[in-house]
């Protein structure tokens, strides 16, 4: 299969130093000059610091020998993923366009449903979707923004001429995570290799919490000039707890759990040492299902009873809004380019990966006939669970998936196996190419904005295409490099 490497236009091989792409030249020269011993000790230093600072994630179900939940480090790779500034410009425009259309779509779905009436998306695709929240029909939200924080996963793969082409792989519009690693990775790189930053003009990212706070405040429904913003976390045993605490701290707002909140007369309050205090904006890191036991899952203790009533009365903002899942579902994904045309009258800047909708008989037939070459995904799956990577699977795995597919074709989509671009990465044997993706975090408030770049995830296993941290993926610092 054709390969595209971010750093090398021709990968090094024995007796061949390879050929470095222009925007990586200065870095490659620097790396060449480093003592491997020094790099190894920097790696250890990074790991030690991450541990001491407690930048860890909890792994569901795993237990330590002493019975407490496992806290693991996400492996951090020292070699940055570099993107030339002019390339990023195009990507950024594409992201603004895509997220704008997605927000228009969610608003439309819960109001006039023009896009369904026009026949662009089949009605049953929406109304039978488990992520569609009837509770949200006719509910107005500030600025008509639903997905305030969007994590758009982008991959790069070679086209027929061998040039790298960006594709959107997935839109994450519910509670996308990972932005704290983007920030911490940069901090770590600047700490370990300050000289690199004086030699390169790397676009800064540290102002993300500021933009986030601005976005959240802009979504406040209250007339107050000083809205009270909180971050709602499921608690310290959640895998992304570090990030919740980190963002709350960076923004200087309270980190609350469901038990800290209560609703009275359709207003939300938090319990403080000085009595109840009104809450105007909730940046929730809890899924819809758990937000309000009186409306959604009744057994949930992570949310707050009465929250939906307060929300619908326009007394509190929930970010992201309830019901955004209807737009990031994998069965809706194939329609995003159509949304862009429908709402904005523009051609999509960022490409979608060609997708077979297994609920269509023709597509199902094609998928079944080509399982060994395709990636098959559960429509509602996330985190790298519930998917089949055909070329990397055994016969038995493929047959098991075939059974699942036949039993429930609506539950799956299939895509060609993209050869994700690679980037040199430190591994046991030295430096070797590993597959990567990119998750920029797009903020929608009064305007749509983002910090340059995003989180680069890397599949550390040789040949693996799964970059999720729950599946052994690592992260890299991402540089948007100005000439």
């Amino acid at each position, binding site marked *: 299969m054709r390969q595209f490497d971010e750093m090398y236009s021709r990968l090094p091989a024995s007796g061949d130093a390879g050929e470095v792409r222009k925007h990586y030249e200065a870095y490659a020269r620097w790396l060449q000059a480093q003592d491997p011993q020094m790099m190894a000790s920097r790696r250890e230093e990074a790991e030690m610091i991450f541990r*001491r*600072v407690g930048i860890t994630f909890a792994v569901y179900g795993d237990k330590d020998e002493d019975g407490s939940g496992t806290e693991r480090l996400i492996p951090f790779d020292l070699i940055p993923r570099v993107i030339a500034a002019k390339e990023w410009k195009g990507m950024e425009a594409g992201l603004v366009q895509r997220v704008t259309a997605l927000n228009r779509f969610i608003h439309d779905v819960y109001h006039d449903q023009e896009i369904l009436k026009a026949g662009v998306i089949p009605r049953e695709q929406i109304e039978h979707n488990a992520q569609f929240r009837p509770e949200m029909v006719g509910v107005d939200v500030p600025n008509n923004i639903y997905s305030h924080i969007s994590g758009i996963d982008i991959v790069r793969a070679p086209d027929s001429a061998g040039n790298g082409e960006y594709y959107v792989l997935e839109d994450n519009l519910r509670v996308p995570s990972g932005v704290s690693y983007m920030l911490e990775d940069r901090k770590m790189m600047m700490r370990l290799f300050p000289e690199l930053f004086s030699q390169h003009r790397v676009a800064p990212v540290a102002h993300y919490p500021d933009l986030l706070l601005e976005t959240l405040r802009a979504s406040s429904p209250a007339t107050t000039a000083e809205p009270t913003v909180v971050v709602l976390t499921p608690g*310290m045993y959640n895998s992304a707890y570090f990030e919740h605490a980190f963002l709350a*701290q960076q923004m200087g707002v309270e980190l609350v759990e469901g038990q800290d909140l209560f609703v009275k007369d359709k207003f939300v309050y938090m*319990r*403080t*040492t000085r009595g109840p205090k009104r809450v105007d904006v909730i940046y929730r890191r809890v899924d819809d299902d758990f937000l309000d036991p009186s409306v959604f899952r009744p057994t949930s203790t992570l949310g707050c009873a009465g929250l939906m009533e307060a929300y619908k009365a326009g007394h509190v903002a929930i970010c992201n809004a309830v019901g955004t899942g209807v737009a990031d579902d994998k069965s809706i994904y194939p329609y995003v380019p159509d949304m862009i045309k429908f709402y904005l009258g523009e051609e999509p800047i960022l490409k979608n990966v060609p997708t077979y909708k297994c609920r269509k008989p023709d597509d199902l037939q094609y998928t079944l006939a080509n399982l060994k070459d395709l990636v098959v995904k559960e429509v509602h799956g996330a985190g790298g669970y519930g998917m089949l990577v055909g070329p990397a699977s055994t016969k038995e795995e493929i047959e098991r998936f075939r059974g699942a597919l036949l039993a429930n074709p609506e539950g799956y989509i299939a895509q060609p196996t993209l050869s994700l671009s690679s980037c040199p990465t430190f591994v046991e044997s030295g430096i070797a190419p590993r597959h990567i993706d990119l998750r920029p975090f797009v903020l929608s408030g009064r305007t749509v904005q983002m910090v340059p770049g995003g989180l680069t995830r890397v599949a550390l296993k040789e040949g693996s295409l799964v970059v999720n941290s729950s599946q052994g993926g690592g992260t890299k610092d991402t540089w948007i490099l100005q000439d």
Partner: protein
Amino acid sequence: MLSRTADHLFWMSRYMERAENTARMLNVSYETSLLPQSAAAVEAGWEGILSISELLPSYLSLYKSINPRDVMAFMVKDVDNPSSIISCLRAARENARAVRGTLTTEVWETQNQTWLEVNRMLKSGEFERDPGQFFEWVKFRSHLSRGVTVGTMLMDESLYFMRMGTFLERADNTARLVDVKFHAMNNDFFGAPQYGAPETESTQEYDFYHWSAILRSVSGFEVYRKVYRDVIRPERVAELLILRPDMPRSLHASLNEVVSNLALVSHDRESDTLRHAGRLRSELAFGRIDEILATGLHAYLTQFLDRVNVLGGRISREFLMPLAA
């Protein structure tokens, strides 16, 4: 601030303080056990440690006899013993983790580092090789934790609840220590039948080590000499640890801190908790050791511990876990 946040901060400090006091007690017992003395005396000393923490029954369900090695293992690294040092350090760190955003980076990293280190030390056998060194280490981590708190935290409610936790726990721990140690000497030492019995030379000598051990466990040996310029007398040891406002680990000094931090978080509102704390503090401020001894030290301390416990409950209800909306 969030009530739950205040709760975590309060308990984070309490557990750290408890870890320190446990280390102090164990260290002194460990050093004392190196002195020549009868097996019965050694056993009584270690039994005292277990009774201080009200752990004698759960210890005896696990071990056949009371000996230094088993008691230390139980009180240091048994994760099922909620009062062991490892359990306290874990609880302190878990509470810190739950509110890490409220803590300064230095405070959080100190807690986290302590937790990572203690695990390493217990796994590597460092503790068994040199228990004394380990206890010193725990003590200094607690010093560091307090210092980094006072030195870096904004002086607002967060800090006040942390300080309150530290000193409420210290009041409790010191009271227990005094109670058990005096109890061990005699059945209610003061006013009890044996008081005034003829002293032999050997009991005098034993007394010296006994009382100096208590003093050293609260870093009070030099303090005693400085304050009293006298040989060590039990009633003065009791006075120092209960009533002296200038002895940093005394009940009086601890209650002073509890009251002043409570006042800071109560603002102008009427606080029943503050009223109770203030009353308890006044009794220490205006109490006299001969009066306390006349009523019986054990009875006095038992009542004190009850009242500290009630005070903790009141702080919880008023600030940390308000039930009413």
